[in-house]
Every structure is written in C-alpha cells, then in structure tokens.
C-alpha cells in the first residue's frame, strides 16, 4: 500500500510491512525494541534544543515560532509574479519562494533562440535587474525572506537580490535570501545544470564565502535531498546524499582557509515529504541528528547553533496524482502533518493541480490554508516533538539512522559524492529504483488511491493556468527597452571585469553585483561563465 510493501496472507491480514528504506515494521513495539537498537535518551534523543537535536533545534519548538509558510510562486513576467506574491502575503504567507522560468534557470535571455516557447512558462522570466525591481516592488525585504529556486546561476540571482534590495534602500546585512544553489542535486535529478562539476561547486563556494560578511542573514545554500527523492531515491538515500553533498560544499569553503564555524550555520536543507508517514517522521529526526553529529565529529564545529539542521520539509510533488486531483489536497495535508510532527522550520506544499499546471490562485491559497489550519487549529504548536518516546518512532528513528549511514558508506565505496555524481553512479541507481517503483504501481503491488484502487475511469483536466505567447513578447519588449536605456559603457565595463575575475578564479560575487546594478542581463553574465567553464557532460543512466 502506498509507498511501503505489504505482504498479506490468504485471509488478507498483513504479515509484513517493508518501508522504502528497507526497514521492516513490526506489528507492535515495546521496551525490548529500544533495547535491541541500543536506544539511549541522552545520546539518541536529549531534550529539544540539546545536541544531537533529534527532537528539535529549539527548546520551545513551534511555541516560540511557527514554521514559515513559503509556497513556490512565479510565472509570466515580473508584473504577474509581483501580484501573486502580494496575494499570498495578504493571505498570511510569511515567506516567498520564487519560481523562475527555464530560460532564466539555464542562463538564457528571453530573446535567445534557446528560450523560444519557454519564456515565463513555468516561472517568472528574469533578464535583468529591471525584472527584480518589478517583482519585489512594495515587498518589505527586511521582514520577508525569499527563497530563490535556482541553481546553475544562483550566484547571479543572489547578486541580483542584493542589487534590488540596495536599490530599494535596504542594507544587504538585513535581507534574507535562500537561493537553492545546490548543483550536485541538479546533476542527479531536476537537470537544470550548465557548468561542469568543479566550477559549478566553486560558484557555490563563492556565494557562501561572500554571504558570510556581506549578507550574513542569507542562507546561501539549500541542500536538496528533495529532488533526489523525486528522481527515485529512498528516504534513507535522500538524507545520505544530501549530507554528503553539503559536505562537498563545506570542503570547498574550507579550502579557502575559513573556519567551519564561520559559515556552516547558514546552510539549510530542502527535504521531501511524500511517503509513509512514520518513515518520513523518522527520516527527519534521524537527519537532524546525523547532520549535527557530522558537523561536530567530522568537521569539529564548536558552536551548537551551527549544528542545526534547518529545513524546508515540503513539496511532495511525486506523491500527487493526475487522477482525482482533489485527493491531492488531502495528501498535502498529511504530508504537511508529517513535516510539522517532525519539526520543520519551513513548510510548502505542492498545490493539488500541480500535476497538470502552474497553480491557480485558488489552489495556491488552499495549500497555504492547509498549513495554517495545522498550525492554528489542530494543535501542532502545543508541544515539541509530540511523537518522542513512542517505542515505534524511537526504534524506527534509530533504524533509519543506520540505513542512512549505510547509504553514506556505499557512496564512500565509489570514491565519494562528486565521483558518484560525475560518473552517473547515483543517476543509474535512482533511475532503476524509479522504474521498479513504477512497475510496482502498475502491477498493483504498491497501492495508489485513484490510480490503481478506487479508480473512476477517464481522468479529466482541472482548470488550467493559461500560457500565451504574449508573455514572451512583453518580456522581450522589456528586455529591449532595458538594453536601450542602460549605460552601455558601464555595462560593458562590469562584464569585462566579471570575465577577468572569472578567468582569474576570483570570487565572482562582487563582480556579479556590479553587473546586475549596471543592468547586464542574465544571458550576458552566463555567457562569460559558459566560455570560461564549459558545460557539464551528462553521464549515461543505463
């Protein structure tokens, strides 16, 4: 059923439950199970806010602060996106999460032939600072933080965020951006990579190094187990790979001579919520513990606050179905429940129509209300880590910890996370698992409501977000105007400086900020990187 495997006897009674991470669930649990897994309160759990933070990173949990609600938003031009931002804020949303269109994510301007048909389609089109000026108009950037869902050119978008904030009179020290900025996971799933592994990781190192002093409230990297899980990884692999990827970014910054305590406290994580509810809760708890231990024992992190796994636990896109789309509203509620039970700092949900389309305002607000309802109506803020002490949950958390460590060791055997990504080892593994999962759904071995049980025949479309070519026309018109009106001499100067800095291997961030302020375009800046760095060669997956 669902994402676990169930074995039944002739009478239909369940005789075995195997979770995706390979853990068998027993019919019931007792003190002997805690003994079997070697559970100790001090070592494995401890009070909330106390190392290893299995229960929570803050002693008061959601009593001191509710989780941030941050629906993924953006489409068309910056004008339409700005309107939707304001709509969500007016409905009580407490953070932004910007969706960029594919040309922007891939570093192409809207008038590039590669952008044809894609401008503003799955996110907001951004060509220059002008688009950010419109998108963030009348939004208090000192109060509201912004997730920037972009990776290959996250450095450019972070620079642009600083540029727009300064243009609107905010000190860079008070703004809080969370660029996704995790390129290794793009190479495993999602696919919005441009540059080869080494320079791509170097750019991430640049953003981390730069943020330390210039934008200390920014979270320069959000390590995404999320998309790795969407691509077919088990929950244990999701966490194992996320921790190893985070370590690769840490290593890059350490090589520059910094102390790990100077920067690692700003790392954040983006983890997935679909799946078996108990396995998810155990996964998040084990992840918090393993991340803290990894930092303390492997990297010698001293300050406890720097060991916190701060996470957006959300999405769950793969769990949603096209069939009977309204069921996705209920799925979202249960996914959010698992995130809230496990102490997420931020939650966002895929909207019920996302298997078809960009969310309509109606469906986006339903997702937001789902989160608000959990927070304010059901009792999720009452007490920290309410499942703690359950024989089952504590045993499962320990077992999950073991599975995650096993998966980390497997990557060690193939030479570490960078070779495992560059050679396609992980891509092969997760695509085979994705295939096995799909076969399980099609054979009925794994149950999915509306898909292979309780079906209702032909599926119908939901209300679709309309995309028209006018978006591209408007955007290209705006781009032309920016190019006409900008001080071309200054633009060229900043781009030449960027090129020199890139070739010299310097931290490119200050140069990118200058380029953005001179209205250089995303395509112009990316072209320099493409010329200097080249492109990633995708390994095979079979």
């Amino acid at each position, binding site marked *: 059923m669902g994402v676990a495997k169930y074995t039944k006897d002739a009478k239909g009674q369940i005789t075995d439950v195997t979770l995706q991470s390979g853990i068998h669930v027993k019919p019931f649990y007792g003190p002997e199970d805690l003994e079997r897994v070697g559970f100790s309160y001090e070592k494995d759990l401890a009070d909330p806010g106390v190392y290893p933070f299995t229960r929570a990173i803050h002693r008061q949990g959601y009593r001191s602060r509710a989780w941030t609600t941050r629906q993924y938003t953006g489409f068309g031009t910056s004008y339409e996106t700005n309107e939707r931002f304001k709509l969500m804020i007016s409905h009580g949303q407490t953070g932004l999460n910007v969706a960029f269109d*594919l*040309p922007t*994510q*891939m570093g*192409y301007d809207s008038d590039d032939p*590669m*952008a*044809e*048909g*894609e401008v503003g*389609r*799955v996110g907001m089109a951004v060509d220059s600072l002008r688009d950010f000026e419109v998108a963030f108009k009348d939004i208090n950037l000192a109060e509201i933080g912004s997730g920037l869902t972009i990776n290959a050119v996250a450095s450019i978008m972070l620079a642009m965020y600083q540029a727009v904030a300064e243009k609107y009179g905010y000190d860079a020290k008070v703004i809080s951006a969370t660029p996704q900025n995790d390129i290794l996971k*793009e190479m495993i*799933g*999602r*696919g*919005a*990579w441009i540059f080869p592994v080494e320079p791509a990781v170097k750019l991430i190192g640049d953003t981390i190094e730069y943020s330390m002093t210039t934008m200390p409230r920014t979270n320069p990297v959000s390590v995404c187990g999320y998309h790795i899980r*969407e*691509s*077919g990884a088990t929950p244990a692999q999701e966490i194992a790979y996320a921790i190893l990827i985070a370590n690769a970014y840490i290593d890059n910054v350490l090589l520059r001579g910094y102390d790990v305590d100077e920067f690692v406290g700003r790392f954040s994580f983006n983890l997935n919520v679909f799946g078996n509810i108990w396995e998810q809760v155990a996964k998040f708890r084990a992840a918090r513990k393993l991340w803290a231990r990894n930092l303390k024992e492997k990297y010698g992190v001293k300050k406890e606050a720097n060991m916190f796994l701060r996470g957006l636990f959300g999405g769950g896109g*793969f769990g949603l*179905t*096209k*069939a009977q789309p309204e069921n996705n509203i209920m799925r979202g509620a249960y996914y959010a429940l698992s995130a809230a039970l496990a102490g997420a700092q931020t939650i966002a949900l895929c909207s019920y129509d996302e*298997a*078809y*389309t960009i969310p309509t305002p109606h469906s986006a607000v339903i997702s937001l209300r789902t989160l608000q309802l959990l927070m304010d109506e059901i009792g999720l803020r009452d007490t920290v880590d309410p499942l703690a002490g359950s024989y089952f949950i504590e045993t499962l958390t320990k077992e999950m910890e073991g599975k995650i460590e096993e998966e980390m060791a497997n990557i060690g055997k193939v030479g570490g996370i960078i070779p495992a990504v560059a050679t396609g080892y992980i891509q092969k593994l997760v*695509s*085979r698992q*994705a*295939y096995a999962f*799909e*076969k399980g759904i*099609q054979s009925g071995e794994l149950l999915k409501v509306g*898909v292979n049980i309780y079906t209702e025949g*032909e*599926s*119908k*479309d939901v209300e*679709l977000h309309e*995309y028209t070519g006018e978006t591209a026309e408007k955007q290209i018109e705006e781009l032309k105007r920016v190019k006409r009106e900008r001080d071309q001499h200054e633009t060229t100067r900043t781009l030449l400086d960027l090129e020199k800095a890139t070739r010299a291997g310097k931290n490119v961030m200050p140069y990118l900020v200058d380029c953005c302020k001179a209205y250089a375009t995303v395509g112009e800046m990316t072209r320099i990187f493409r010329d200097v760095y080249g492109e990633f060669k*995708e390994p*095979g*997956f*079979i």
Partner: protein
Amino acid sequence: MDAVSSTDTVKEAALAAKKIRILIAKPGLDGHDRGAKVVAHALMEAGMEVVYTGLHQTVDQIVSTALQEDVDVIGLSIMSGAHIPIIEKLVKKAREAGIDDKMIVVGGVIPVRDIPRLKELGVRGVFPGGTPFAEIVSVIRENVERGQEEKWA
C-alpha cells in the same frame, strides 16, 4: 500460392529479426527526466533498442540524432507545457529532413484537451504520466509493424 507464402515467410522473418529502435528525447530546457528514464527502462525490457539524447536538446538536434541513429520511433518527454509548439516544430523539421515516416510519440504532462491537436499533428501515441508500460509498448509495436507491413504491401 507458393509465391505468396514465401513472401509471407520472408516478411515474418524480417519483422522478427528487426528490433524496434526508438529515440527517447528531452526537448527544450526542462530537466525533469524521471519519466523519460523510466519509460526507456520499460522499452528496453520489452526488447526495443533505446537511444537516449540526454537533456536540453533542440528540435534540430533531435531530428539529426534520429537521422543518424536510423530509429523507427521518436519519443519525446515534455513536462514544461510546451508540447504543442515543440511537436509542431518537430513535425516540420522531420519533413524537411525527409524522415517524416518516423513514428512520433509523446509523454509527460499532457492535458487531455491537447490530445486531439497532437493527434492531428501526426503524433501516433500520447502517453500522459501514469500510462501503463504495456500500453506504450503495444502502441509503438503495432504502429511500427503496420509501417513495415505497408512497406511490404
């Protein structure tokens, strides 16, 4: 009678010997390739030869790979919503390259309302997410075999 049965035997042997070759392509800038890879696994398991283009392919690149690899089928995986303009372009470019005999199929995030238009453009199989592998395999097989039969007719 004899001549007919001998032609039938040759034809059957030719059909049996020829493995269906299919190009799985990801046009455009979208990188969500779980679906493309899963379907590629299923087609291989069904005995077909799969050529995978990798991500971020232009329509021109796809047509040229189809030509070079001499595939029977071009399968596109599209999640971005841009399926209609992409297919329009592909059909045009395939005609220009003289390979409009290749069967075109498409999968991904495809709303029901767009299926008639895609069929009208000449797409022989539309497989929205969740389509059973058996259906994908049989649509491809039947169409390719029909194409072969027409060659022999």
